[in-house]
């Protein structure tokens, strides 16, 4: 196992040293403290190699202390739930967690994958576009896919609970560092409703790990006071360990809340959707590394991170450290280490001098500084052993003569801090590169957003407070104009940076730019040679910045290298687009618990419980859970369906049709309105009568069929198919509200107020006449296609005598909450008449035997009423209706169109299948297809319906039907297979 010089220091840090936490790493038992992250605990235990790099399988150590971590992505298992690609720098240490390195075999310390490093010359950027070609890609595909990737998915159920929350506020402050806290305080004091969201488990940002003074106090003291005031403020909500990952239009943002990720009752992830009147981004900055040969060794770390581990976690990154920098800020690492008793071998500064106070600090401590110098190479295999330092020549760009090797086990690197502008950019904000500050800056944004603190390159504490306070005040005030420019008043300090990021090449040794994707400067050089010089092309060709860290520590350096190679200033190169999410967000969190049974609400019919209790096989039909059939004993579904069909044909069936759409239309213009909507004549319908109608869209396509009843001259009841209930109600509203608002009527959908129980079969009338009530069911008083309402079995009832099955049939509507009791009563009273409950599958077979159209099955997006044989009805209709003009088009009237027909197999035992095509043999093409098919127990054979070119003129023709390689012969017939005259339903 690799050991480094990293260790826990005796004093210092903000941990609870009294409380220990045990965990394992690659099988080894280790111990840390409450307050540690996984990364700090690994460092404290002297672990050097934590992972192997993506492509070359090079040993890697912990590089940072935050979201930007490119190396320490580990598999973490807590309570049996294993998650890959966890950033060790963000994962709190949890008792009993099992941590494993992935992308290595057999172990992270001895990985066979190192072979890839040996042959790295064969694996430059885009190599896969040039190799794996013979004999073809698929020969290699399997192996390559197995080797690609950084982690394996866990198996088994995800026991995490996911919840979604919505949050509304006046002012959203993202980031609770000094600037963010200042903004939140000011907005809160101004009376605004404030939400403060911080990604860390503690508030305070970088000030938690720096030895700085804030407004004359220690950082901790200032932070504590601020937090205390905010916690007591009633209109302030604080979310910790919550990361704002997406910024969308209209100041809508999303955040992933992991504050209960280790909850004792089970892991929880919470997704927040936030609507803020104003947003203040205080998202800080991310330190950038230097680029030099072998800059990816374990032991090399960002300078600020080294300080974080020391000051916050009491962990020293090594025993003898070198600091390499091009700016003042990194000197703090030298000072902090020195003051904690850790040896600082040297500071290697690319500049000639530092700021005055820095120079004083160096003098006081007697630290050695190598000026105008850069680290150009490193040594050591699984842990850093030494670094090579060269002086820069007078031109500042090439190397001088005096190379020294400095032994050390920790190297802190810094090429300056880069504002975290991702959310600003997602909001539509523009960013630009500033050469004096040598970083990317927010420039302007149309949304109601302000950006403060290090995120706006306001690096000094005083600037951060001033800027945050100003933004908080402005944001809290209502109706301020949209602030466009990011504002530069508070930016003055530059940290003395000199924009040298890459050491001149000392040898052929590789210089890393993107650690996670293993992209080196030679890859960028290759891209430039092949003319991929636009920044978007460079990114995609080299994959720099495309890994799961999204280039947080590599995008800027890649731009710098590109700038060097092309001779164009970085400010002219542009940046790639930032898109949500800033950090990975699980799909489960986004779904927020709407998975499994909660994915789509299944609707239950009023008599649902009766069906469940009586053997119903429930399936999903148009969003409703409905009985497909009712199983008796050990019968199969097929047997049940056949039995139910025969029950209706020979005795009596009871079917629940409650999802059928029901819409009341009331007013003097009701008939006129419906006359414009339906293809059929409406105005001629008398009270008490029911008529079948088709609705078309403006393109003449059939969108629904159903019946409409006239209750009185100013009161109509429209029925729609079950699947279209809401859609047609909306259709009617749209025409009334938008096109004909002057028609005097009101619409009232009543679909779910009424349960519909349909009695079908020769005994239907007999049963109804046995029930007490005031409706006359005799044949003369209540003919087919009529409507009656009144009392039935002590309930309010609306009865329509319509038939979907071709039998004597009554659709009875009763109030939905009485459905179960009424159903029970009908079943009991109908027992000696042979009543049986009927499922939807049998219902559809019954209608198929009659050749009755089922819109959506027998029609598609091209079927017009002429195709269905309703030409004569259209002719007789007077006046305009929706879709009429389309039916006048020549193409709509062609007889060569697919027309609605019936089909019967010629051979006795053959079966038609819906979806089969009717084909001609020369030329071999489809002439149409089977739209519905079933075995008819009534007729003892397979029957079907279809849409066939010139179908109406081809009755009795024998055609060839093709289905998955088999063919059969079928006769084209008129759709009515059973009782074509309709004697049963009209009786």
């Amino acid at each position, binding site marked *: 196992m690799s050991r480094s010089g990293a260790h826990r220091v005796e004093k210092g840090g903000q941990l609870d040293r009294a409380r220990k936490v045990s965990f394992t790493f690659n099988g080894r038992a280790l111990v840390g403290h409450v307050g540690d992250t996984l990364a700090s605990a690994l460092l404290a235990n002297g672990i050097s190699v934590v992972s192997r790099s993506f492509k070359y399988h090079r040993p890697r150590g912990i590089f940072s202390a935050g979201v930007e971590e490119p190396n320490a992505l580990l598999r973490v298992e807590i309570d049996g739930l294993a998650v890959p690609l966890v950033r060790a720098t963000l994962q709190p240490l949890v008792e009993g967690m099992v941590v494993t390195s992935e992308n290595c075999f057999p172990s992270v310390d001895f990985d066979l994958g190192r072979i890839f490093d040996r042959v790295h010359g064969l694996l430059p950027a885009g190599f896969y576009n040039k190799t794996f070609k013979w004999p073809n890609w698929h020969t290699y595909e399997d192996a390559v896919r197995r080797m690609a990737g950084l982690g394996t998915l866990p198996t088994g159920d995800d026991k995490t609970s996911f*919840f979604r929350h919505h949050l509304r506020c006046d002012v959203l402050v993202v980031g609770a560092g000094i600037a963010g806290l200042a903004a939140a305080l000011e907005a809160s004091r101004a009376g605004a409703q404030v939400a403060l969201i911080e990604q860390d488990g503690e508030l305070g940002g970088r000030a938690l790990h720096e030895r700085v003074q804030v407004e004359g106090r220690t950082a901790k003291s200032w932070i504590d006071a601020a937090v205390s005031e905010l916690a007591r403020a009633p209109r302030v909500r604080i979310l910790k360990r919550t990361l704002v990952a997406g910024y969308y239009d209209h100041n809508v943002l999303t955040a992933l809340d992991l504050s209960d990720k280790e909850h004792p009752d089970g892991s*929880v992830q919470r997704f927040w959707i936030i609507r803020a009147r104003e947003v203040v981004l205080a998202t800080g900055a991310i330190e950038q590394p230097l680029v030099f040969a072998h800059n990816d060794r374990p032991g090399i770390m960002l300078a600020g991170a080294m300080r974080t581990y020391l000051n916050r976690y009491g962990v020293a990154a090594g025993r003898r450290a070198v600091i390499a920098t091009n700016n003042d800020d990194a000197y703090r690492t030298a000072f902090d280490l020195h003051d904690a008793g850790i040896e600082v071998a040297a500071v290697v500064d690319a500049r000639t001098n530092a700021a005055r106070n820095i120079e004083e600090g160096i003098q006081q401590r007697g630290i050695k500084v190598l000026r105008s110098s850069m680290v150009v190479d490193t040594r050591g295999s699984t842990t850093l052993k030494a670094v090579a330092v060269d002086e820069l020549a007078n031109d500042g760009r090439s190397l001088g003569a005096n190379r020294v090797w400095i032994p050390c086990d920790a190297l802190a690197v810094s090429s300056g801090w880069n504002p975290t502008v991702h959310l600003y950019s997602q909001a539509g904000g523009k960013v630009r590169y500033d050469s004096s500050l040598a970083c990317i800056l927010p420039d302007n944004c149309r949304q109601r957003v302000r950006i403060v603190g290090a995120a706006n390159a306001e690096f000094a504490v005083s600037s951060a407070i001033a800027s945050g306070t100003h933004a908080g005040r402005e944001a809290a005030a209502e109706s301020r104009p949209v602030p466009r420019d990011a504002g530069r008043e508070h930016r003055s300090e530059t940290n003395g940076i000199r924009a040298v990021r890459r050491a001149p090449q000392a040898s052929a040794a590789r210089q890393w730019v993107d650690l996670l994707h293993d992209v080196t400067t030679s890859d960028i050089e290759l891209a430039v040679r092949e003319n991929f010089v636009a920044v978007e092309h460079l990114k995609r060709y080299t994959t720099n910045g495309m890994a799961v860290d999204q280039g947080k520590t590599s995008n800027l350096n890649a731009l710098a290298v590109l700038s060097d190679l092309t001779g164009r200033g970085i400010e002219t190169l542009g940046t790639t687009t930032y898109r949500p999410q800033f950090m990975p967000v699980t799909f489960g969190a986004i779904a927020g618990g709407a998975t499994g049974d909660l994915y789509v609400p299944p609707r239950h019919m009023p008599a649902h419980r009766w069906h469940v209790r009586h053997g119903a096989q429930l399936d999903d039909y148009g969003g409703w859970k409905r009985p497909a059939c009712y199983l008796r004993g050990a019968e199969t579904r097929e047997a049940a369906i056949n039995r139910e069909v025969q029950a209706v044909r020979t005795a009596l069936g009871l079917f629940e049709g409650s999802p059928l759409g029901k819409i009341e239309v009331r007013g003097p213009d009701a008939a006129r309105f419906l006359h414009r909507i339906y293809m059929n004549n409406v105005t001629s319908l008398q009270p008490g009568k029911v008529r079948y109608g088709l609705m078309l869209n403006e393109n003449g396509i059939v969108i629904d069929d159903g019946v409409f009843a006239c209750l009185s001259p100013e009161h109509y009841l429209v029925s729609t198919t079950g699947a279209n209930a809401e859609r047609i109600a909306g259709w009617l509203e749209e025409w009334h509200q938008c096109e004909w608002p002057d028609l*005097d009527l009101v619409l009232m959908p009543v679909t779910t*107020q009424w349960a519909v129980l349909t009695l079908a079969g020769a005994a239907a009338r007999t049963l109804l006449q046995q029930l007490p009530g005031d409706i006359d069911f005799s044949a003369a008083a209540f003919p087919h296609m009529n409507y009656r309402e009144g009392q039935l079995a002590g309930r309010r009832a609306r009865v329509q005598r319509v038939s979907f099955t071709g039998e004597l049939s009554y659709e009875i509507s009763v109030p*939905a909450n009485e459905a179960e009791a009424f159903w029970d009563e009908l079943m009991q009273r109908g027992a000696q008449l042979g009543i049986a409950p009927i499922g939807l599958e049998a219902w559809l077979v019954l209608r198929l035997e009659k050749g009755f159209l089922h819109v959506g099955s027998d029609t598609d997006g091209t079927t017009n009423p002429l195709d269905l044989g309703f030409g004569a009805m259209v002719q007789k209709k007077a006046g305009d209706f929706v879709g009429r003009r389309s039916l006048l088009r020549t193409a709509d009237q062609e007889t060569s169109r697919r027309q609605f027909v019936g089909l019967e197999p010629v051979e006795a035992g053959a079966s038609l299948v819906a979806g089969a095509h009717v084909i001609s043999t020369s030329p071999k093409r489809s002439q149409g297809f089977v739209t519905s098919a079933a075995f008819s127990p009534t007729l003892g054979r397979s029957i079907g319906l279809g849409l066939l070119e010139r179908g109406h003129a081809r009755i009795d023709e024998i055609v060839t039907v093709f289905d998955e390689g088999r063919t059969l012969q079928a006769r084209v017939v008129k759709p009515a297979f059973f009782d074509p005259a309709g004697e049963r339903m009209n009786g």
Partner: protein
Amino acid sequence: MADRLVEMDAHPRRAKVRLRIGMSAANEAVRYGLPGMLEAKTSGEVTVLSLGPDQWLLVSDQLSAEKLIAMCASEFATVRHHAVDVSAGLNCATVRGETAPALLSMGAGIDWSTRCTRTRFAAVPVVAHRHHETSFDLYYDRSFADYLGQWLTHALRDPFLNR
């Protein structure tokens, strides 16, 4: 967790009538004493909830639906209107207690401080009536009862509600 924070079918015998009047008459609605958008009004034994500029939900625990419809018939005799009994198809759930606003904010991102509102709550259309500071009636279609119950059971398990 608060006792009886959620009750799925809190008022099974409550009468509910949906009233709609012609849009051209909607201006006059205030003259008839009907509440404006996002408002609710209680007068005697009837509470009227606004569903839209031209629609209201009349609810009563004392009067029957027939009585409410008859009241509409006489009040709006000269105005194009239609009043329908919707008691059978609508359930009324109550959500009450300190955590009510937080629980409701899991289902929809609206401003829950309005007195009466219609929105999409956990994928279900609801009419919400805030009759007290932390007490809400949610009217929803009975066909969603099972789903909504499951959804609320799931949501109540979030430890956030107990903080």
